[in-house]
């Protein structure tokens, strides 16, 4: 059982760190250095988590090469579902042609809701409940104007098509290991537009504790060390945390370079780890081993080990790559960003 197809999507628009700094009177050089983010991806006015999920899902299905009606489950993980009640997943299912003989639901676990969906699909495929499952992580993250989060909160998404490895595949899933506690480092109350967070508390007790524990737990379970991996991707809320956690675990910069996207796109929340994984799939060779560890505030981490299969060479060409999306960009100013993200009050 493993990954039969994968897909990514990034909107076209980018807002530079120095443009945000200009508005709020911050030092652009210092912000860029401190966060490790140069620019972030911003959704267009007619895009949202649903439309981003649909594009990523369609790309995953193109690579999967299957009839969409064979998808038995769709899970969309996000912090920015357009509806509080009415699932994103059913709209996506209709749009990709998977309806009606299938199950669907939306997931929420801050930035790791997408990988939680991967685990659900893994179980269902392994149990023979479904032939294929589509797990999507996508977000159009909102942040309060002037809040430090604004420099990174971004839009984007990625999808994995999970199925048995009886045909051509992208990668086998060797194992998964999760670490979950109740740690309120970052949250958003119902009916409030912007999240709140515990400042520096989000670091050690949040991101680092869970990411390290999940990664170490997986390595222990598999009896492996960082040297056994060719690539690693960690949740990337900025450009600094994933580099630090990689170093602490014993991974080198070259192992994480391919999957490190946040300097160019910001934090795509539920899309972040899966987008980094997609970027790795765009380049990885058959036989290579990949570690992916997500992190969701609240808090928890899901760690996965993938072994790349020979199908990847042909399949990666069937849909746009992450690098194609990275290059397809248009810069906007802060006012346009406010208009697109509905911050302008009438």
């Amino acid at each position, binding site marked *: 059982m493993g990954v039969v197809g994968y897909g990514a999507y990034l909107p076209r628009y980018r807002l530079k760190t120095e443009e945000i700094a200009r508005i709020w009177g911050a030092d652009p050089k210092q912000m860029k250095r401190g966060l490790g983010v140069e620019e972030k991806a911003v959704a267009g006015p007619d895009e949202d988590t649903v*439309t981003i999920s*649909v594009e990523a899902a369609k790309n995953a299905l193109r690579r999967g090469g299957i009839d969409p009606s064979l998808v038995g489950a769709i899970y969309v993980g996000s912090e920015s579902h357009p509806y509080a009640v009415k699932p994103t997943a059913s*709209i996506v299912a209709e749009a990709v042609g998977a309806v009606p003989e299938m199950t669907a639901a939306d997931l929420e676990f801050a930035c790791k809701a997408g990988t939680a969906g991967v685990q659900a699909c893994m179980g269902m495929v392994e149990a023979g409940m479904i032939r294929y499952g589509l797990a999507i992580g996508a977000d159009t993250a909102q942040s309060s104007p002037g809040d430090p989060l604004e420099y990174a909160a971004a839009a984007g998404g990625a999808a994995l098509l999970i199925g048995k490895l009886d045909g051509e595949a992208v990668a086998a899933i060797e194992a998964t290991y999760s670490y979950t506690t109740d740690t309120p480092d970052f949250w958003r109350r119902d009916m409030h537009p912007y999240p709140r967070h515990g400042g520096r508390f989000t670091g050690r007790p949040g991101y680092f504790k869970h990411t390290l524990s999940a990664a170490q737990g997986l390595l222990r379970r598999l009896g492996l060390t960082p040297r056994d991996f060719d690539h690693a991707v960690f949740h990337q809320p900025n450009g600094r945390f994933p580099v630090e956690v990689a170093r602490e675990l014993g991974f080198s910069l070259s192992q994480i370079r391919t999957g490190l996207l946040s300097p160019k796109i910001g934090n795509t929340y539920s899309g972040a780890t899966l987008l980094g994984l997609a970027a790795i799939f765009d380049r990885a060779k058959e036989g290579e081993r990949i570690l992916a560890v997500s992190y969701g505030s609240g808090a928890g981490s899901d760690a996965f080990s993938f072994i790349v299969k020979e199908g990847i060479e042909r399949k990666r060409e069937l849909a746009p*790559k992450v690098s194609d999306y990275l290059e397809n960009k248009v810069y906007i100013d802060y006012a346009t960003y406010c*208009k697109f993200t509905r911050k302008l009050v009438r």
Partner: protein
Amino acid sequence: MHVPRFWREIPNRYGLVGTRCGHCNRIFFPPRAICPNCRRVGQLEPYRLSGRGRIYSFTTVYSGPGDFREQIPYVLAIVELEEGPRVMAQLTDCQEEEVRIGDEVELVFRRIKEEGEEGIIHYGFKARLVRARPQPGA
């Protein structure tokens, strides 16, 4: 547009499903129940269109209805789909300056509008310039 009316056309709006006359083979999008050529002799069946086409005409709307106020200015186009029919769609991911009659476009899934702050969200198709989509890089 109220719920049942929007819901009824979801397969057409999301899946680009039109109709084809089994008698004269003409393809209709939006879908038609009667073929104007063949009328009662025509046999219409569902037909899924590719979404690829060219710009036949376009205009930028600077003064629009309330539901679309936040998207002003937006570009509206008549797209001639490769199967023959022409359909009206907004353009996305581009400015009017970039657009020429004859440009290749593809229909993509986008958010069209909402029924106010509390109502449902209408999704559907918009047209994107093919040259504005991510190009296979080096």
